[in-house]
């Protein structure tokens, strides 16, 4: 399975600012996924990032709030823009290495907005 490095592991941010989370994979993957896990809740898919095209956002998530970059097949970033306390959550990136395999997750970014 792929190895994912995600950073930062945690951050405390002021409301109104933005944070960019980076995800680096040790091998090339077609699709990368960004999830949010709010306190006490399950993982919710934010968007799917394909290299060379715009990310596909799930219902309730928009590009202006969560812009995503995917400059190559091993790297992606998720930005949480104009943050409010409601954005406090764990953000995770994930990839699937080949059909039939499970998904591998990054270690997550614990974001606290104050």
């Amino acid at each position, binding site marked *: *399975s792929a190895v994912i490095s995600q950073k930062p592991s945690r951050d405390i941010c002021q409301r109104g600012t933005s944070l960019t989370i980076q995800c680096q994979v040790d091998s090339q993957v077609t699709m990368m996924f960004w999830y949010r896990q709010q306190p006490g809740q399950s*993982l*919710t*898919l934010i968007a799917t990032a394909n290299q060379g095209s715009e990310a596909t956002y799930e219902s309730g998530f928009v590009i202006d709030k969560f812009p995503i970059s995917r400059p190559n097949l091993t790297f992606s970033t998720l930005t949480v823009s104009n943050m409010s306390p409601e954005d406090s959550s764990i953000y995770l990136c994930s990839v699937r290495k080949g059909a039939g395999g*499970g*998904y*591998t*997750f990054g270690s997550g970014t614990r974001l606290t907005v104050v």
Partner: protein
Amino acid sequence: AQRVTQPEKLLSVFKGAPVELKCNYSYSGSPELFWYVQYSRQRLQLLLRHISRESIKGFTADLNKGETSFHLKKPFAQEEDSAMYYCALMNSGGYQKVTFGTGTKLQVIP
């Protein structure tokens, strides 16, 4: 729409007792189902998937299409099994979206 339901937020069992973590799903096609585990202070990791019919760390899960269930079982719980367990479903269409259940915290009492 696809949905995954894990009815128990917390399951406490004694060491050596059998474990069954329930998962029910809703999906009109042929889904691919997974169990993920998250140990304390560790990242989420794949435990097993239904297509490989494997047993990992003594855990098994059988897909029951009639009951739309994918319960996770282990005959004898061990303390190191204490963790959060998430059931997940991936749709069979071209856009492979994964939906997670809300998770069950398994607590194995020594």
